[in-house]
């Protein structure tokens, strides 16, 4: 089984090497013609206001965390939905409990006013 770990080691080496290689490659072959529009911050196509180095409101953090909860929920829901028929009724109940627990969390967060932008 040391050979099994050798795969992991090889993977690590190749992973790092590949990233370095790609960076180097794009540096070598890409043309470099900057203009003001290209150097602007990317804000989903909007015309950016001010600099990129601004302090973000800490409130974003709370929203990000709450978003992650539901993101993870989807990670569980998709595989469950794919094999739903073979899992049967029991898994359905389990999933309901799981979602109910998340909804408890949402209700708590909502009621505590964490979803309000003040």
């Amino acid at each position, binding site marked *: 089984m040391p050979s099994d770990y050798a795969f992991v080691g090889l993977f690590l080496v190749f992973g790092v090497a590949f990233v370095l290689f790609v960076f180097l490659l794009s540096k070598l072959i890409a043309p470099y013609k900057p203009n003001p529009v290209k150097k602007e911050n990317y804000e989903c196509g909007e015309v950016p206001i001010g600099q990129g180095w601004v302090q973000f409101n800490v409130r974003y953090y709370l929203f990000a965390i709450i978003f992650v909860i539901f993101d993870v929920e989807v990670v569980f829901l998709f595989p469950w939905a794919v094999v739903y028929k073979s899992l049967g009724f029991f898994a359905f109940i389990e999933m309901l409990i799981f979602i109910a627990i998340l909804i*408890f969390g949402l*209700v*708590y967060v909502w*009621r*505590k006013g964490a979803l309000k932008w003040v």
Partner: protein
Amino acid sequence: MDLSLIDINWQVITPQIILAVFGFVLLLLEAFLPKDKKGILPHLAWIGIALSFFFSVNLFGSGFSGFNGMALADNFALFFSFIFLISSFLVVLLSISFLKREEQVRGDYYALLLFATLGMMLMASSFDLIVIFLGLEIVSVSLYILSGFRKKDPKSNEASMKFFLMGSFATSFLIFGIALIYGNFGTTNLEKILFLAPFSGVFAGASEFLLYAGIGFLIVGFGFKIASVPFHMWMPDVFEGAPTPIAGFISAGPKAAGFAALLRIFLLAFSSIKPDWTLIFWILAVLSMTTGNLLALWQTNLKRLLAYSSIAHGGYILIAFVSGSNSAISGVLFYLSAYILMNLGAFAVIISMGSKEKEGTDLYKEYAGAGLKNPFLGVFMAIFMLSLAGFPPTAGFFAKFYIFSSAIKSGYLGLVIIAVINSLISVYYYLRVIVYMFMRPSAEEVKPVSIPFSLGLVILLTGIGILALGILPQELLNLAYNSIF
């Protein structure tokens, strides 16, 4: 895949389910109850704990298991459940008047307490490293939040932040250790590892090194949770900053849970390769005892003093891992039962001595002569300190006695001599508290304090418990002996 093949046995985890349900109810009530009705929340919390305790008692002796060994209700797990539930119950009682004083009567505090207890029970009641890890994370995350519960106090914030950063760092060690052990045996089930461990060198070839690396990582990860030296740095700072009931809670339940998991992993799953890891525990035990006791000598803040004393007590318990006999394991169970009583009792006295403005932790200013002005607190603090120092006829004496005698029987005389010398050192700082309370002229600001009912109840219960265990230790010892895995 057919789910009906998995052996699901809901009965096994009823105590845990009750805690979870009560936790959710507390969260929802916190969100919806008007402010003036929140006084009922702590009562709901202790009712939940009592119900869970009742169901655990019912399961005792059944030896049920479920979820393919991921959840157990053997006596070992249930004995630890009793320890966790009793300590959480006492902490809820400690918190009632404390939170009222801080004007922070909140349901989420109690919900987090219940979730932490649930996590500890998972840690003690599983044969699976992944479930143990999961339980440990539930405990840790709850405690990170709870230790920062006094949001406006910078020290509380500091405690929470330090605890979080160091705790998550230690957890990464733990999970890496689990990964290496899985790589070695192809399973995270401790029962299977028990059978595979003696042959680790035989069919795994050169990977024995990885097994030992994995064991080392596990010791680092759990060493942090039980605050053994050199992984103890967080404990004094967290104790000083965290709300006092939470500091008491951290020293009692989570520590016991760490020992429960360690006992199961090392004295069960890795028992066949014990000679390979005994020396590590020998060193950890000596370092923890000596460092904890020597640093405690200089403390004038009572919470910090109890933190270092807690580290030292962790060292005494680690002796049992070196000797590893059955009587040592039952000694650990006895020790932890006694320890939660004396420590939570001492914390109850600290909370009674404090007020909204001051914490009641300064030995010189707040405790000088306080024993004469508050005889009830003084007498019981003396009992707790004597028990922590290990004087008969208190529970602390028998706790130490059983662990030391089992180590002598296993032939570790040198270790026991070091432990006894350490006990002697510790007498100095425990007795100093009593000396200050009774034999020093009192400072001006020391006044008689009125003790809320719930706090007085905790002090009385723990005090009586310590004396009862010290005079009649046999009952609990028999129970502990029947609870070995």
